[in-house]
């Protein structure tokens, strides 16, 4: 019994470490989007470069379902272990290679093309990895502990995100801003090779899943997992049920709580990047053990209720929580110390042209300790007949300790919804499909729900906020009343609407499972 327990601990840790590294690899791209946009895209239009970087980042999400199909099929044909070894190496290789790509300034358009190709490989690899690891652990777990054991796999995405933020923060702290900009940003990518090597060594001695081995011995392996999964109504209806009744809502809750919250703090609340990332990391660290708690609880009271409760809480409380976050740092609620207000103006020549750049820096302190800084950059063209580029404005706030802990509390609430929706879902999905098509069948709805509906959420929400702000500006210019009272909350309509639909479908169509694996 002791031996069996040790083996299970080894199985879970070896599977989890590999999956964690894949999430790390996947997320460092997003966490470094701002700096990557200046390296791999033309810098004459920073906004377009940033959007192109986000589009490249999003391409990795969109391609995940294809990875689920390709590697899911392999996993159901040749086995779980070999397939997720391949995805691990593919992910590590692609990430390492991104760290080696010369900049746009060196190789021109090849740079963004190479980045896109490698990002697609990352997405394909992740599409194959998660389903393999979840299936592998689930197939080793007893029925009464499956939620608990697979919940360790569920922590990997969050821990991968924490590590990616941590590695970037440490790398930044260990060098000057100029060095990080010149070469330091490559370090988190290159570090992946070392992590993957360690994971490969840990994983290579793992044995194949016992349920897959049994199915193989009995000749019960699917000859065509894709056709069986999606070509037959009997399975396709469960794939759709898993997607619209569980993974769609779960993906939206996950990305709203863990990714959009970060975007909201930085882009909408204007909190300093490092401070916002610190808030996120602390909130994530406090919340992460809840994945294990809710995974274990699902073994006792069922998966459905916990997952749906996470979605419902998101639907009900997203607007109040994000409103609280916004108002916590809203400068109109604070009192400025007039004597601290400073305005500096500096005119510098733009190299290689006769144009110049006017940089205006406005700074001030507030009575509660908040520090405000706004930098406005305006290009002054020598040729007055030409149209000058739009002024670039950046506001940064450094908030006080009390506000910081309020925000950490809000992030913790968001993460707790994530852990409810996400903690039990691996066990729920593997129990829905039979062994011979499990890898394929569970991977696709997971990666459509999590990767596409969820992964695109921050980009869509940011766009909706921008659209609402623009509409208000136009109305103001026309002398009309603002169309949106709280434009900064408009992005939440997308996750709230779809998570509500998912909740209703899940509530009505998913029956509480008996926690037995389908044969």
């Amino acid at each position, binding site marked *: 019994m002791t031996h069996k327990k040790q083996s299970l601990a080894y199985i879970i840790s070896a599977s989890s470490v590999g999956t964690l590294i894949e999430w790390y690899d996947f997320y460092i791209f997003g966490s470094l989007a701002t700096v990557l946009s200046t390296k791999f895209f033309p810098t004459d239009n920073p*906004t*377009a470069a940033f*959007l192109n970087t*986000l*589009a490249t980042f*999003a391409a990795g999400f*969109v391609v995940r379902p294809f990875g689920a199909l390709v590697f899911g099929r392999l996993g159901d044909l040749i086995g779980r272990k070999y397939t997720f070894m391949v995805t691990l190496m593919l992910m590590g290789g692609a990430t390492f290679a991104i760290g080696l790509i010369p900049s746009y300034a060196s190789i021109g358009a090849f740079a963004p093309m190479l980045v896109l190709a490698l990002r697609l490989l990352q997405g394909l690899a992740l599409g194959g990895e998660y389903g393999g690891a979840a299936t592998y652990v689930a197939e080793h777990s007893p029925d009464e502990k499956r939620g608990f054991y697979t919940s360790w796999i569920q922590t990997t995405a969050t821990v991968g995100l924490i590590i990616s933020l941590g590695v970037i923060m440490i790398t930044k702290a260990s060098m000057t801003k100029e060095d990080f900009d010149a070469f330091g940003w490559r370090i988190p990518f290159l570090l992946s090779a070392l992590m993957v090597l360690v994971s490969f060594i840990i994983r290579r001695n793992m044995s194949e899943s016992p349920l897959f081995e049994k199915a193989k011995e009995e000749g019960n392996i699917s000859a065509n997992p894709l056709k069986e999964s999606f070509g037959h*109504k009997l399975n*396709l*209806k*469960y794939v*759709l*049920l898993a*997607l*619209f009744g569980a993974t769609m809502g779960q993906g939206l809750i996950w990305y709203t709580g863990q990714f959009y919250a970060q975007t909201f703090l930085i882009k909408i609340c204007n909190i300093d990047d490092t401070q916002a990332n610190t808030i996120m990391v602390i909130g994530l660290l406090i919340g992460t053990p809840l994945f294990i708690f809710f995974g274990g609880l699902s073994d006792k009271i069922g998966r459905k209720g916990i997952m749906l409760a996470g979605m419902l809480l998101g639907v009900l409380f997203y607007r109040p929580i994000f409103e609280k976050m916004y108002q916590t740092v809203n400068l109109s609620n604070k009192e400025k110390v007039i004597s601290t207000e400073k305005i500096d103006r500096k005119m510098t020549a733009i190299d290689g042209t006769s144009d110049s750049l006017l940089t205006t820096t406005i700074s001030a302190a507030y009575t509660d300790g908040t520090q405000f800084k706004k930098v406005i950059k305006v290009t002054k063209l020598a040729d007055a007949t030409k149209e000058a580029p739009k002024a670039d404005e950046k506001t940064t706030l450094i908030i006080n300790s009390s506000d910081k802990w309020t925000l950490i509390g809000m992030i913790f609430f968001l993460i707790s919804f994530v852990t409810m929706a996400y903690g039990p879902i691996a066990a729920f999905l593997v*129990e*829905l499909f039979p062994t011979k098509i499990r890898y394929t069948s569970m991977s696709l709805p997971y990666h*459509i729900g999590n990767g*596409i509906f969820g992964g*695109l959420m921050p*980009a*869509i929400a940011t*766009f909706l906020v921008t659209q609402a702000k623009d509409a208000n500006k136009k109305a103001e210019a026309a002398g009309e009343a603002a169309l949106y009272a709280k434009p900064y909350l408009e992005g939440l309509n997308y996750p709230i609407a779809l998570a509500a*639909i998912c909740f*209703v*479908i899940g509530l*009505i*169509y*998913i*029956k509480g*499972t008996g926690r037995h694996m389908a044969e």
Partner: protein
Amino acid sequence: MNTIKKILGILWIALGIGAGYYLVISQALPLWKSGGNDLVPAIIYTFILAPLITLGMSTFGYYAVTGEFNSESK
């Protein structure tokens, strides 16, 4: 409960088609016309979300209407 499941199936089909129309005609079309930075969300709405929601929800709704989820739901 089975009757509710079937009736709601019609709602899912309508929702799938309605969401597709809303995303492509109301949201994406103006973005395609304005071009520039708006092309990224236009592409997402037109080629990713609209087909996924329309086809997926309609098929799910069809299965619900035809009673596929009545006795075998898990």
